[in-house]
């Protein structure tokens, strides 16, 4: 995906710049942007160092385990047909908990495990190869909730904002939370409607 996207940006950009007489700007920007990217990374080093450091403390103090328990009622509401102490439920809650704190490296493995578990449950239920290639309601719900993005603190964006001299880089936390809440709420409502329509 990114292969063609990136090549497209470069080829179209240079060609278009040549046509419109902006080729001098294009020439300057090629090396300028590299310098800028590295400057940005220096800011990022500080922010990510602090954030991931804090998250390590939280992880070792059992925060994800604790949050997983906190999220259980929500998970039971979203996945009424999945057993409460099943592996699938545990992985899904861990994935959501890790996503809340922007811990992508902890979220993805748990998320993939959750999908595998959901797939096993489906195979036990339907048994046939053919049907197990069709997503279950739970898979759809889990992914939609996951994609609706539950992040509490958008650390990366805050870092980028501070690099570009924002007066208040973290000022977006609350507005972003509201927007995230709206997108997740819409996701929940949509999933509940579709789930009622029936199971395949």
């Amino acid at each position, binding site marked *: 995906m990114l292969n063609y996207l990136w090549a497209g940006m470069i080829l179209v950009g240079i060609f278009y710049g040549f046509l419109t007489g902006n080729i001098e700007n294009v020439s300057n920007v090629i090396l300028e942007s590299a310098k800028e990217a590295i400057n940005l990374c220096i800011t990022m080093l500080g922010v990510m160092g602090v954030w991931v450091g804090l998250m390590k403390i939280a992880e070792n103090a059992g925060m994800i385990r604790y949050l997983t328990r906190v999220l259980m009622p929500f998970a039971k509401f979203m996945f009424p047909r999945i057993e409460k102490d099943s592996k699938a439920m545990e992985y899904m809650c861990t994935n959501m908990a890790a996503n809340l704190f922007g811990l992508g490296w902890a979220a993805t493995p748990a998320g993939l495990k959750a999908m595998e578990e959901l*797939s096993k449950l489906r195979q036990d239920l339907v048994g046939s190869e053919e049907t197990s290639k069709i997503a279950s309601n739970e898979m759809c719900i889990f*992914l939609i909730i996951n994609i609706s993005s539950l992040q509490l603190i958008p650390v990366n964006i805050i870092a980028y904002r501070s690099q570009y001299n924002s007066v208040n880089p973290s000022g977006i936390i609350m507005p972003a939370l509201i927007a995230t809440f*709206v997108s997740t709420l819409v996701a929940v409502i949509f999933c509940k409607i579709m789930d009622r329509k029936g199971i395949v």
Partner: protein
Amino acid sequence: MHILVMVSNMVIPAVVFSIVLMGILDKQDVYSDFIKGAQEGFQTVRKIMPTLVGLMMGVGILRASGFLDMLAELVTPLVVRIGFPAELLTLAIVKLFSSSAATGVVLDIFKEYGPDSYIGMIASIMMSCTETIFYTMSVYFLAAKVTKTRWTLIGALLSTLAGVAASVLVVNFF
């Protein structure tokens, strides 16, 4: 926006306070945990560094050539009626496919308009409340060996649309 910004300023100190407190109460070696984590954080940045160089160059070329402005002008009639800045349409679309490419676009917006501008604020919020739909779907469904994804895409798109609309509204109303 003022109250929201004020509350926002409390969030990070509150989170830092509770994490350190939680660690100490749990009798953890919080300092060495922090150092270990910081090390991992550096690794993460080191890993995204080449990506950022590549993508900022790509978006930079598109911007300098005037192509992005042309694109924005092209889509303006489509979105101006609902009060959505044309520059952000590019961002919303790119974000569906690739998070890092979207980062390139956001940084370009910050550079052009500033992170605290109207467009800069919406872009910041949009980035925080949307997810790369196609990437996430393909990776997750691959793990479950599923090929028919039923209503996942439409639900994800709907939720993303709601997030984008909410980003614009929240900046307009506060």
